[in-house]
């Protein structure tokens, strides 16, 4: 930390010229400003216009880092470091976390819900800019003092003297505020448990009570020439066990019948099926096999 502070001080060093005497900044600072200012405005516009939330957040990060640089240039190396560490590092990351929590792809709909709000908002933004810039330009005929004297003991020491001197009570109050905020966040995001907690034992007992299958499901069919998830295994009686095929494949209709992989096995299966068909009436012709899969199985087909 101290190293970075020193770095900030060193970085600021050459930029800080005798502001008090000239009433104007150094050329180097001017160059820095004119490089950074357009970047910041563009990034801010990125926040304003980008459809994707993550882009907007990253634009803000850019603005904040640029601001940190400007702080350092403005003889406020402490604030510059705080800006990077606290704001960009902590707060913006918090934003990104929440962004992920809420859903990254939750982008704005294009339909404006409030009639005329788009034009009104744009007008307000432009009007605010015009008015603020006018006020600043009108009031800016000030003689800059520069912080050379105030920063004589290095900037962090000067800031610390002010914070722990004139603003010590504000500091305490802000501390209380932070604690309150932490508690508030916990309270706000707290979720009341309204049902009893269900543990492993309860789950197992519920499962047995439901009377379903207790053992693991049989593995899919394993054959000499075909070893696949989509072919059912044969039971002890030689009949295919549909349940051995994963449920998803069955729902999608991507299940293959035994016929397609081995004719002998299918014949045995067909014989069994014929017996059943005699009971049920006219069934499918033996040997024709079951209905072929409606979709061709390709390698790319994702299996979920």
């Amino acid at each position, binding site marked *: 930390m101290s190293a970075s502070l020193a770095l900030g001080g060193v970085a600021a060093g050459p930029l800080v010229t005798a502001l008090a005497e000239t009433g104007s900044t150094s050329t180097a600072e001017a160059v820095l400003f004119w490089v950074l200012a357009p970047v910041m405005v563009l990034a801010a516009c990125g926040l304003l216009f980008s459809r994707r939330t993550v882009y907007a957040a990253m634009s803000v990060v850019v603005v904040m880092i640029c601001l940190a640089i400007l702080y350092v240039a403005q003889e406020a190396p402490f604030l510059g470091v705080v800006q990077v560490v606290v704001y960009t590092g902590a707060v913006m990351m918090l934003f990104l976390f929440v962004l992920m929590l809420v859903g990254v792809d939750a982008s704005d709909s294009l339909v404006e819900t*409030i009639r005329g*709000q788009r034009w009104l*908002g744009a007008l*307000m933004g432009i009007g605010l800019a015009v*008015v*603020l810039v006018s*006020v600043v330009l*009108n009031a800016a005929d000030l003689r800059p003092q520069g912080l050379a004297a105030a920063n004589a003991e290095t900037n962090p020491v000067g800031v610390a003297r002010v914070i722990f001197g004139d603003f010590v009570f504000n500091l305490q109050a802000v501390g209380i505020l932070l604690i309150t905020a932490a508690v508030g966040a916990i309270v706000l995001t707290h979720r009341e448990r309204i049902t009893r907690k269900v543990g492993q034992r309860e789950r197992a007992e519920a499962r047995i009570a439901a009377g379903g299958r207790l053992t693991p499901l049989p593995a899919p069919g394993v054959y000499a020439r075909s070893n696949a998830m989509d072919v059912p295994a044969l039971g002890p009686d030689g009949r295919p066990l549909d349940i051995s095929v994963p449920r998803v494949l069955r729902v999608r209709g991507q299940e293959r019948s035994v016929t397609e992989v081995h004719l002998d096995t299918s014949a045995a299966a067909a014989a069994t099926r014929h017996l059943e068909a005699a009971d049920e009436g006219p069934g499918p012709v033996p040997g024709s096999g079951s209905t072929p899969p409606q979709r061709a199985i390709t390698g790319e087909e994702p299996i979920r």
Partner: protein
Amino acid sequence: MTTLPAALTTVSAALPTALPAATAEGVVAATAASGVFELAWLLVALPLASAAVLLLAGRRTDRWGHWLGVLASAGSFLVGAVLLVTMLGAPAEQRVQDLHLFSWIPAGAFSLDAGLRLDPLSLTFVMLVTFVGTLIHVYSVAYMEHDHDRRRFFAYLNLFVAAMLLLVLADSYLLLFVGWEGVGLASYLLIGFWNHTLPNAVAAKKAFVANRVGDVGMIIAIGLLFATFGATDFETVFAAAGGASEGLLTATGLMLLLAATGKSAQFPLQSWLGDAMAGPTPVSALIHAATMVTAGVYLVVRSGPIYAGAPTALLVVAIIGAFTLLFGAIIGTAKDDIKKALAASTMSQIGYMMLAAGLGPIGYAFAIFHLVTHGFFKAGMFLGAGSVMHGMDDDVDMRRFGALSTAMKATWITFGLGWLAILGVPPFSGFWSKDKIIESAFATNGAEGWQPWVFGTVALLGAGITAFYMSRLFFMTFHGRRRWHDGHGAAPDPDAPVRHPHESPGLMVWPMWILAAGSVALGGALYFGGFEYWLEPVFGHTEHDDPVLPVPVLIALTLLLVAAGAFLAWRQYAAAPVAVVAPRGSVLTRAARRDLYQDDVNEALLMRPGQYLTRSLVYGDRQVVDGAATGLARVVAGSGELVRRVQTGFVRSYATTMVLGVIVLAAVVLAFRI
């Protein structure tokens, strides 16, 4: 005959009465109560405690509760009797006593004590209320025997007695007001005692509302007194009343009169009394004939010192009394409902008392005198009416009575004695009191020329009409042809109902006998006992002016009119057959049957405009006030509807608005270079 009253006066003056006249012309000032008078609080406390026990203990007291009520009332009577005897033994200067009970409202500079004023006036009322009250309690034990809620009835009766005693014993207008409201409440509860039928509940409500109108007057009067004198107790107010302006006293007097008209069923607040007969008959006898309705007279008489400074108000009292006297009498002539006819008679008799009270200090004593005698004979007649109803399956229509004198002998005799008393036939009670009022009405009292003639004539006419309607009532009920059917033989009239009249049980008859005895003898006894002087410590001594007509002429005229009225009634209702179903009658009859359209007037003048007012207020409330509110809400909702479109729920739209705001702010900064 000509010298009879004068002779009586001389006799009474010469008698070594137990009531020496007050030495001073003026009123005796109150002294602190001492001795047995300190027990006066028991008067109120006994019935109040009994009422509390009966109401709070509930059904547990059902078996013996009525006897507790009787005992409480009798206990009050005993205490009152002891106080009366003690007071009779005291010299006149010590007959006005004030019993301090407790400090009631100590509020800064103003402090009002609750106290009882014990003087001849209040003790007179105490005796009337507790004696008649106890008799009616006893009567009610039998009368209400089959009523499921007899205990509650006695609780209310006790409550009434307590409140009435508080009313007459209070030593301040504020405490009087407590009793005033208490009797109003008891009256309301008792009128609506059988409130499971709607008309009774409505009648109770009507009485309550009419009384509240009067109460407003009472409250204003108390407020005026308090604002002027800073006190409401009688002692302070009466002492200071002489110095107050006549306008204020007139206003106070008129407001007190308003209160009195409400409670005493005087014009224009008299309409509730007839409907109040919906209550059980003992209630009508006690509250709506003998005691509570006379509270208005008590109030006026008690406030004598205020009226002394307000001759206009006093004149209005007399006019109201005279008007109601005729008003009630005319209504009484047409009513077929025995209780309502008696109620109209009560109204009319209280009109007499009001008239007497309105004549000023010379009439006060006669007003109270008539009040006491009236309390006896009217209560007796009401109990008689209750007895008749008891025997006639609670029928009240006199057109279905007739010839009951044979079936109900005791009722007939007691009622007949009461009838003679109210007619003013000498030497029955009514003669002594009513005749004095007529005399006083004819006396000049230092007033203008027209007043004696008008008031005197009205009082005289009233006596005649009273004789007519009371005789009509008496004859229709007890004499003439039978208009009911005893179930044997041929019916006398196709419309006649089947009835089995029988005499009431002893508990009902004995109170009637006692009251009848009072109707016979009380007037004379009090007259010769110097009742007038008995009250002098309260009213002061007043010289009586001579009537504009000689007294013997007045007595003769009165008796002549009474005889004429009674004869007319006999001819029409005893000698001639009476229709079972009321004939249509003349315009005046129909008007009198409808209480001379007082209800219609009330409805037209007060109720309808009130309803229109409330309706328009409601309309205004709905349209203007609610309209403003809902309109505002609608505007807000509408603008919200507009703004709602902006609230799409899309974060980006909100962000757009924010950015727009930023642009505008920055543009402002740019434009003004802040």
